[in-house]
């Protein structure tokens, strides 16, 4: 509680300091103007933080969205005579529609294609702005009216400072709320690659679109404000160079932290002003020499402090309080557990071919409710491919897979998760920077679905409490309760595997699929894992695990399936399998 109060106080002090800045005696007008520009840039940089540092995408074209906001209000106020305040919804609408349109095309792209696309449209829009008659071509639109309250026009920089920084405050609060919610966790999970997120029902394409559009809307608000502060618009502040400067702000400030965007905007804006005064004097002629310093700064930050500068400030601030868990929150609804002994998962002649290679060759077997079934086989037997077929990561070439009587082959990973199959990964896929609790909470993504807007406005707190309580419950169930507030990356490998099991349990699965759960574990870690899995079975869970540690599966499983070169060569109880001559030959080599 004390920590929470401290955190609140440091925020109130920060807000008061910003609010008092223009009123302090002796602060020159110019500094206040600069402060306004810092606020305008902060809005864009905050959006880029969410996009780049949190969502793992990036954009060099954010300046174009600023342009959409600015031109929309400039046209509406100068040509249609609208009041500046009333154009905000239109500015948001035009930016949002454009972002959706561009986002649908590009946000789904993986890796480097999105930033490349943003460079392309960043340049295109600059030339478009500069060539459209109605937008005044390269001269732009002048005579944009200032904001006004009643008869008072907000012309001087002290007056206009407040609307700008109010917008920044709202942006910070909305962004932090978004990150601290179900959708926020989904967005943060994007950086861990899409397969893990999709396996827990996250629609990664939608999550990307949400963050992309939100970032664009923040840029649009910045443009809307800019038009009425500057009182004119022209294409040059919305070109690709401006886009690169915005990205520098996000990277420099700390691309993983909302307030890092504000820090970056402050440094870059002040530095730019200073350099524009200083460098031409040093060099002797005029020109945009600050780009040399900015370029070097960008590379240096990436080389020396890839998290940006905000973490250094974060060390000085009081630690954020760990999330409160409300154990009394209503329990999330449970799925009906299949009864023991009935067929749960039926695999019928599943086949996967990669060109001429048959990785899984017409494999059939059944997993009954309440059992632990193991799939074993030497390296290259097709275990992982079979696993990928079951989890929807790869489509089967032929054959059928039924889960609780419903055909599931051909469903995407998300659809399979929705039907109650949860999985873990051979190579642990947790987001290292998120806490264990938050990672596990992603498992509950499909069980309760507060909306994005509700999350931003903090209307999701009841649902959020239930999600976190469930995540905490599953962590306690697997014995990681005491570690829940640590970053996932700080756990040992064995604990990370167990945390993945907790995340899978959080989905409330009817079937748990484990991909080589014992790989890389030490002896007593394996023993603990075996105990945990036996306990889950005793609680009614059905498990299917792929494994090549013979000892581990022999002691644990009820039923074993042996694959060799893609084909099933034997099936039965561990005792039957260990006496099967074919299996012995496959594992130990033939007797000469």
């Amino acid at each position: 509680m004390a920590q929470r109060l401290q955190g609140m106080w440091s925020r109130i002090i920060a807000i008061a300091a910003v609010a008092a800045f223009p009123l302090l005696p002796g602060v020159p007008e110019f500094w206040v103007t600069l402060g306004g520009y810092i606020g305008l840039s902060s809005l864009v940089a905050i959006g880029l933080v969410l996009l780049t540092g949190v969502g793992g995408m990036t954009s060099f074209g954010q300046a174009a969205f600023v342009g959409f906001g600015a031109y929309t209000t400039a046209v509406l106020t100068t040509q249609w005579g609208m009041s500046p305040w009333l154009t905000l919804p239109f500015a948001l609408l035009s930016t949002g529609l454009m972002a959706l349109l561009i986002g649908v095309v590009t946000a789904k792209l993986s890796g480097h294609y999105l930033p490349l696309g943003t460079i392309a449209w960043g340049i295109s829009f600059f030339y478009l702005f500069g060539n459209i008659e109605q937008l005044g071509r390269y001269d732009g639109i002048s005579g944009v009216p200032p904001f006004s309250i009643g008869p008072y026009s907000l012309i001087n920089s002290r007056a206009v400072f407040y609307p700008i920084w109010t917008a920044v405050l709202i942006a910070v609060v909305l962004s932090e709320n978004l990150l601290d919610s179900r959708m926020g966790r989904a967005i943060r999970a994007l950086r861990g690659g899409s397969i893990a997120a999709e396996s827990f029902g996250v629609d990664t394409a939608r999550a990307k679109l949400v963050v992309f559009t939100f970032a664009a809307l923040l840029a649009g608000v910045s443009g809307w404000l800019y038009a009425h502060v500057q009182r004119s618009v022209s294409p040059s502040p919305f070109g690709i160079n401006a886009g690169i400067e915005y990205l520098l702000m996000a990277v420099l400030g700390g691309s993983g932290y909302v307030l890092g965007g504000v820090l970056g905007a402050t440094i870059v804006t002040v530095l730019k002003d200073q350099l524009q005064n200083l460098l031409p004097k040093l060099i002797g002629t005029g020109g945009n020499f600050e780009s040399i310093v900015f370029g070097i700064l960008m590379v240096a930050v990436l080389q020396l402090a890839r998290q940006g500068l905000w973490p250094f400030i974060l060390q000085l601030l009081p630690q954020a309080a760990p999330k409160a868990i409300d154990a009394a929150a209503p329990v999330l609804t449970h799925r009906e557990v299949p009864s023991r002994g009935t067929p749960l998962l039926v695999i019928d002649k599943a086949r996967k071919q990669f060109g001429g290679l048959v990785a899984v060759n017409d494999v059939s077997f059944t997993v009954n409710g309440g059992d632990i079934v193991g799939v074993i086989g030497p390296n290259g037997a097709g275990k992982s491919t079979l696993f990928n077929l079951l989890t929807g990561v790869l489509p089967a070439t032929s054959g059928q897979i039924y889960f609780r009587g419903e055909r599931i082959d051909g469903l995407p990973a998300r659809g399979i998760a929705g039907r109650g199959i949860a999985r873990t990964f051979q190579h642990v896929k947790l987001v290292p920077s998120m806490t264990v609790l938050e990672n596990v909470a992603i498992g509950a993504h499909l069980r309760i679905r507060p909306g994005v807007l509700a999350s931003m406005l903090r209307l999701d707190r009841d649902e959020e409490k239930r999600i976190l309580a469930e995540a905490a419950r599953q962590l306690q169930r697997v014995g990681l309760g005491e570690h829940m507030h640590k970053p996932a990356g700080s756990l040992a490998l064995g604990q990370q595997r167990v945390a993945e099991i907790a995340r899978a349990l959080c989905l409330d699965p009817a079937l748990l699929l484990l991909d080589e759960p014992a790989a890389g574990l030490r002896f007593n870690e394996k023993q603990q894992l075996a105990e945990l899995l036996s306990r889950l079975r005793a609680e009614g869970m059905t498990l299917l695990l792929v494994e090549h540690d013979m000892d581990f599966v022999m002691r644990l499983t009820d039923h074993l399936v042996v694959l060799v070169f893609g084909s099933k060569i034997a099936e039965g109880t561990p005792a039957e399998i260990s006496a099967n001559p074919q299996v012995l030959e496959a594992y130990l080599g033939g007797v000469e």
Partner: protein
Amino acid sequence: MNSTIALFLAQDGIINGAIYALVGVTLVLVFAVTRIIFVPQGELIAWAALTVAALEAGAVPGTAYLLVVLGAAAAALELAREWRELTARYLLAMLATDLALPIGLLLAVIQLAPLKLGFTFNVIATLALLVPMGSLIYRIAFQPLAEATVLVLLIAAIGVHFALVGLGLVFFGAEGVRTTPLLSGTFPLGPLVVKWQSVSVLVVTLLVLGGLYVFFERTMMGKALRATAVNRLGARLVGVPVRATGRIAFTLAATIGAVSGILIGSLTTIYYDSGFLIGLKGFVGAILAGLGSYPLTALAAVFVGLLESYSAFFASAFKEVIVFSIIIPVLLWRSLTSGTHHDEDEEV
């Protein structure tokens, strides 16, 4: 538009497309070996053209000073980062390539430039000044980031572009230049008047592409680069020095950049910041071809050149909009065809 104009535009487009092809192929090469999307390739091209122009005027080109600056920066940074591991032999080599060579070249250029020694000298001097820059830029900016993700490397590349454009302004000023072509005059070919200059551009481009083919298919070094492109770790395990491959890729990039710059200087007016758009157009070609195949990239780049040339005629104001917008349908197509299997699995 009659057929004469159409043919004229086609000639123009193919010539520009040839330059874009050189850029596009370089980008694919650098990306394959280092995973860096080398946006600043355009700056090297502009610098090469500006260098030739300065030499033609008998002046000392800014690149001669820039090379000294880059060499000193690379040496200083490498000393600061790795002074513990550097051997005496490596230090000597560094002294020779990073300090002695640039200063020697600068002194030579100061002596020789006023003599206006002509085309061959200008080409040799431009190559000598530009080629070492590739490896220097790699060592300064990218070597410490060798293990970073594609996204981080791209952001760094944009940072380098920003810095180089600014440096270009300092060392060359804001004036535009145009150089004299290698071959002037024209000859008729059916209804078309062909410029000898066009022929020379095409021939040089084909020679460079052919040279690249021979390098990658026939030489050990080329094969090592290809191996690195396929699997960095695997290449390292069989003894390919991954660091060296980065430097070699960048040296190749600078070489091709210098050649492209020498060619383009006589085709259009080049300013200190013209490189960005030239580079990006090559890059549109590379993206159209999926950032993978060399021949497809070259073809796509020629297509970009043609598109630019015809849209300049029909809608000159929207020329750039059209050229850059063709990326969007390609990206759309890729986003529809590539499923979710494309798991980057990367941490920024």
